[in-house]
């Protein structure tokens, strides 16, 4: 054996109906190496690792493990080989305890007491803090991820696959995670690290394999490459920066939120507590925070889906709208884009034109005497498709037939072309590739330049830092005081994001 490759892939091909998800992909991961798998959404990263972990089977190609050709028929077989995986969307059971969740991930039957002591040993060894008897639904996202990591580490893996692990973590949590990963790698565990965050890959990884459209583009050394050069390999063209007018001044206050409170929605919801902020004309206001800290409730409270008893809690241009429903608020110029595209922002089985009617009917006069003006709806949908270069067959395409990124562009366009006075968007580029994300960001900047006030709720700190003028952090349903983005410190934002969660909650 020439090189001690732990995992070697050659000619891996996987076809789904209509898509070639992986086309002749091959690379190898050495013992103790942290290997990045880099690519845009839909580049085929997840499909590739699912084949390594045995969730999917390749149509062609071979997987070698310590030099031996293997076929991984299911996740159990993968774990037996020593392959562990931490999923992007955690496979956790909300209503169960940490211990029960970990026990479910173990193949061997271990008595609860032994398991608990082994968990405590692993946590001590890697400095992962968790309370075994807490119910998962009460934990922060970072803590949930630790459960997955502990679950994987209990099997003493030789290869650990991490699927976009940092997308929901605070900067401090990311640092802690990297410490654990580096320690693991030193002990000889190989790590396959999937991400599209280039500065993390530069900071952590020894090698990077870049995928684009299912094909292998390059295997490179992230220490030598720049973030920009890797990004350009990833998207296959040169990056465009957001262009904005320098030194523009803000107009008068447009959206004023004052002492907004909202009770929690259901046992796992978050209540909003005394939220106040002001967004001026032309300003983009960012709301950062770890998922599940009241972002959804805030969007609903601003859009009008969850009206408030106090009319003065939300005012637009001085008009109190806090008590109004979403439709009435649209009349006052508030547009909104919720996080969930399919089923909340759009009806999947409706055409794009019909979906346009849902939010634009009053502002653009698409309903006359109770009848839908189908022509006006089609024309408007066509304009949106054109202006935002949405890839769709036309206004009569079904919303569900569009890819996530294209549907997101369509929904953003549907709201923006109505020229709202105030636009509230949540996760505007979640699961959207870098090209589409760039055009969505540009559209938001352009809308602000026309004098609209914009609120962007996002978990992606990089997005907020590059897009917003002012930002605040939401934690446990409370909003921090606003700060000017240009003067904000990452550490400080990270601490605010951690808030009552994270370290503080481990005190006995």
């Amino acid at each position, binding site marked *: 054996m020439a090189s001690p490759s732990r995992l070697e892939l050659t000619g891996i091909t996987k076809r*789904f109906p209509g898509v070639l998800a992986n086309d002749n992909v091959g690379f190898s991961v050495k013992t103790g190496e942290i290997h990045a798998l880099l690519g845009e959404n839909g580049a085929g990263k997840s499909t590739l690792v699912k084949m390594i972990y045995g*969730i*999917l089977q390749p149509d062609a190609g071979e997987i070698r493990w310590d030099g031996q050709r293997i076929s991984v028929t*299911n*996740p*159990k077989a993968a774990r037996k080989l020593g392959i562990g995986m931490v*999923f992007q969307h*955690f*496979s*956790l*059971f*909300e*209503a*169960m305890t940490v211990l*029960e969740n970990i*026990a*479910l*991930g173990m*193949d061997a*039957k271990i008595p609860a007491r032994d398991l608990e002591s082994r968990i405590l040993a692993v946590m001590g060894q890697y400095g992962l803090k968790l309370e075994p008897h807490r119910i998962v639904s009460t934990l922060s996202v970072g803590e949930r991820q630790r459960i997955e990591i502990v679950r994987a580490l209990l099997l003493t893996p030789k290869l650990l696959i991490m699927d976009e692990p940092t997308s929901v973590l605070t900067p401090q949590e990311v640092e802690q995670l990297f410490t654990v990963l580096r320690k693991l790698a030193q002990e000889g565990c190989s790590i396959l690290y999937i991400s599209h965050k280039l500065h993390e890959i530069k900071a952590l990884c020894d090698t990077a394999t870049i995928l684009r459209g299912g094909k292998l583009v390059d295997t490179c050394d992230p220490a030598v490459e720049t973030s920009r050069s890797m990004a350009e390999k990833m998207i296959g063209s040169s990056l465009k920066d957001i262009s904005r007018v320098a030194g523009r001044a803000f107009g008068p206050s447009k959206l004023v939120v004052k002492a907004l409170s909202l009770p929690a929605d*259901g*046992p*796992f919801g978050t209540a909003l507590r005394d939220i106040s902020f002001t967004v001026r004309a032309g300003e983009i206001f960012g709301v950062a925070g770890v998922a599940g800290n009241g972002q959804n409730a805030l969007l609903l409270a601003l859009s009008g889906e969850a009206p408030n008893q106090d009319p003065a809690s939300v005012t637009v241009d001085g008009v109190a709208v806090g008590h109004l429903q979403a439709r009435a608020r649209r009349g006052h110029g508030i547009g909104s884009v919720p996080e969930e595209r399919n089923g909340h922002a759009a009806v999947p089985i409706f055409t794009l034109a019909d979906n346009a009617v849902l939010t634009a009917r009053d502002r653009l006069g698409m309903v006359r005497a109770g009848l839908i003006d189908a022509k006006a709806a089609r024309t408007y949908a066509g304009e949106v498709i054109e202006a935002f270069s949405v890839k769709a067959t036309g206004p009569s395409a079904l919303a569900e037939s569009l890819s996530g990124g294209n549907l997101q562009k369509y929904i953003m366009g549907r709201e923006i072309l109505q020229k709202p006075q105030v636009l509230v968007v949540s996760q505007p580029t979640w699961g959207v590739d870098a090209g589409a994300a760039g055009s969505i960001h540009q559209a938001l900047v352009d809308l602000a330049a026309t004098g609209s006030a914009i609120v962007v709720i996002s978990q992606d700190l990089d997005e907020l830092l590059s897009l917003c003028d002012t930002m605040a952090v939401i934690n446990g349903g409370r909003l921090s005081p606003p700060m000017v983005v240009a003067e904000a410190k990452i550490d400080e934002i990270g601490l605010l994001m951690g808030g009552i969660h994270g370290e503080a909650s481990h005190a006995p």
Partner: protein
Amino acid sequence: MGIDFLIAAIITVVGLSTPILLAGLGELVVEKSGVLNLGVEGMMLVGAISGFAVTVYTFNPWFGVLGAAAGGALASLIFAVLVLQLNSNQVATGLALTIFGTGISSLMGLSFTGRIVMPFASVFPDALAKHEYLRLIFGHSPLVYFALIMVPLTTWFLKSTRAGLILRAVGENDLSAHSIGYSVIKVRYAAIAFGGAMAGIGGCYFSMVITPMWAEKMTAGRGWIALALVVFAGWRTGRLLTGAYFFGILMALELYAKASGFSFLPSQFWAAMPYAMTVVALSFISSRGTAGANAPACLGKPFLPST
């Protein structure tokens, strides 16, 4: 009146509670695995006639109980195939199972109408079972004790065994359980069959204990009460036991009102009470916002793993 009346009343309540406790325990396990089977009433009827028929032929009520369990489980497997294999709508399929069970049990029961079976022998010696006071504890049908033993057994299974943990996991998040590598479909098959068997045993309590004879639709809507009981209990076994006896008291009041003819309200009012109480209890629980916490998150949703 007096102590004798009280003992007789308690024995009546225990008897009325037992079938809904049995069927409710089964349905609780089914729902914990994420499946909503509204066919309890139908499975109880199939169990009632199956148990009765087997006892007629074998002259052994214990074989009858096994037959009732098998009958209920078989009926539930029809539901299981439709819901798990063909992803049909669980609510509609469950309703269909009730209608089917009502019809098939009437058909099966045609030649059994008017016959009677030998009742269970008492588990305890007559000195205890027929004793003036001790019959309160020792004088029940064996199925009553079986139901009472099943309560802690089910609790232990769900809380403390690995199989129970997996079953709850499947009901809580089927996709995650699948991605870890558990067979959601197999777990749900087993849970549905268990629910069917328990409903069947609950059903045969009517045809073999309450009245040792077969009559069409003899479960008289108790399957629906068992369903309500599961929600009423908030998917907790201990509360299910309490709830079953609470409903038992309400049903006993109806019997008393009918039998004595002495009631300040018509017996129909008491007949409606269990249902009315269910509505009251449900709105009370949901207004406190605690009902959702213990409800299986995947309840009633088909399992559709993508790729």
